[in-house]
């Protein structure tokens, strides 16, 4: 019995950690949708949803119930297997990067001796990350780039020309902007010397005060990353795959009920992912300057306030997304392609070369 519990314990802890992370991310995503409707309402001089619960706070759950109880319509001439596969791929690829999010610093001064069977023996610290992967940045980039299959296959399998156009546009857009996004991250990776997300945060903490956050030495990279992130998540002004004035609703025209909800959820989780990446790579992640003077490093309170700081940074990016949506008009498709290939990519590559030269001369 004791042996079984001891062998199952680490797996159970990982499972629990993943569940907690999932719950936190899903709640934030649900309230991002509400915040989007509220903020858009304020930008347009409206009130926004305010009927379900106080100040409309229960609106996300009402929306979810509505999605569950709607009629699920499957087009007759669709390719059934791919049609059902597409939303699953989209939402899985959106949720998978969650395991490498660096939510906060490791809690080191903790006493686990109260656990039975000596389960806490040998555990020196509790990292606030589900999985510590050596190549966290590449993992996030890779999984989000696989997510394009969800959209492309949805467009193809619906047997609808508007859906197909949406899927094609989305594939072309993602291939184009992925390059600029990857190139803009290289500058940060060169400065940090690691691909591990927590490692990048520690590199920012240990750099001199004038580059404490990598947004200062990598401002060009930050701007390129932010623009490419808008394109990667199909948000305004790059929402051509679902441009409702041209393509009805783009790739998800033929999707209804819970399958549409999965696409919707995937899009908002992707928004959250790029916000996490932006905060981690350029704004120091969970690192709040001066917090180590208030609480000892490694204590529970230090971790809690770091997580709060991280969530505030992420919320700032999410608000920026909504703000841009309420402000900017949509690109034309040829403008989008020209902008991506002829402006964003050269700027990102120039930034990489400039960073390499800078690091070389600073180190020598």
């Amino acid at each position, binding site marked *: 019995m004791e042996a079984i519990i001891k062998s199952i314990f680490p797996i159970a802890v990982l499972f629990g950690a993943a569940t907690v992370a999932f719950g936190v991310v899903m709640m934030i995503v649900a309230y991002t949708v509400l915040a989007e409707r509220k903020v858009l309402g304020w930008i347009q001089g409206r009130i926004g949803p305010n009927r379900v619960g106080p100040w409309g706070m229960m609106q996300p759950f009402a929306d979810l119930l509505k999605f569950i109880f709607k009629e699920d319509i499957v087009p007759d001439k669709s390719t059934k297997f*791919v049609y059902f*596969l597409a939303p699953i791929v989209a939402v899985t690829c959106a949720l998978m990067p969650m395991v490498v999010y660096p939510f906060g610093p490791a809690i080191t001064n903790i006493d686990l001796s109260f656990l039975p069977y000596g389960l806490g023996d040998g555990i020196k610290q509790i990292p606030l990350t589900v999985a510590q*992967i*050596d*190549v966290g940045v*590449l*993992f996030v*980039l*890779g*999984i989000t*780039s*696989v997510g*394009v*299959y969800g959209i*492309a*296959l949805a*467009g*193809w399998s619906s047997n609808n020309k508007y859906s*197909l156009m949406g*899927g*094609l546009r989305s*594939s*072309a857009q*993602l*291939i184009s902007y*992925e390059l600029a996004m990857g190139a803009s991250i290289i500058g940060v990776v060169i400065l940090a010397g*690691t*691909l591990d997300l927590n490692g990048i945060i520690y590199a920012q903490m240990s750099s001199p005060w004038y580059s404490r956050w990598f947004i200062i030495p990598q401002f060009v990279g930050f701007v390129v990353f932010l623009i490419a992130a808008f394109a990667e998540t199909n948000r305004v002004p790059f929402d051509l795959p679902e441009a409702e004035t041209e393509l009805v609703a783009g790739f998800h025209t033929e999707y209804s009920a819970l399958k549409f909800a999965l696409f919707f959820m995937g899009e908002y989780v992707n928004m959250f992912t790029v916000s996490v990446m932006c905060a981690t790579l350029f704004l120091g992640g969970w690192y709040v300057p001066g917090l180590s003077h208030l609480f000892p490093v490694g204590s529970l309170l230090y971790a809690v306030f770091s997580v709060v700081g991280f969530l505030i940074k992420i919320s700032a990016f999410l608000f920026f997304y909504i703000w841009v949506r309420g402000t900017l008009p949509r690109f034309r498709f040829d403008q989008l392609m020209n902008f991506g290939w002829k402006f964003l990519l050269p700027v990102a590559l120039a930034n990489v070369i400039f960073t390499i030269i800078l690091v070389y001369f600073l180190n020598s």
Partner: protein
Amino acid sequence: MITSVIFFLFAGLAIACAISLVYHKNPLYSAISLVGVLISLACIYVTLAAPFIAAVQILIYAGAIMVLVVFVIMLLNLDEDKPVVNRLPHLYAIGGILGLVLLAQTFFIFYAVHRAPKQAVNTDETVGKTLSIGAGMYTEYLLPVEIVGILLLMSIVGAVILARRLEYPQLEIVVDNELERRNESEIKDEFRIRL
């Protein structure tokens, strides 16, 4: 124990996806199966302590190259109802021979691995980590990396040239149409004059 379970899970998935890749007549299903093969292989790389290779496999093969392939298949819009014409029946024989060679190779590798002296696993090994791969690429294996880089540059230049050449006939067609239209209008004018 868990490692071997995971290995057999993803190895089985890779083989199943590979069979479906060859079996399906619809090219899009084949492409999706190939993505499945690539992702299962990446999972096996992770269990073999090579996370960098796994991430790059997903990022480049599954995320970029196969997206392009799917893109092309969707654009071509192949006719599914058309019966598949068996154009090259003699390729079955060649395929069979190549399959036998592959099988012999596999058995040879099994034999060689079986004969090789057992080595203790070094837990401090950094092979497969990003830092050691980068250091190896820019010191010990610099020449192969440069050669591959030049090869890729050549292929990019070739692709640009091939894509450019396709534009010329289109331009000519436009010009021809324009000339024809002018000729027609001249003829009409002549008719009008005659009438």
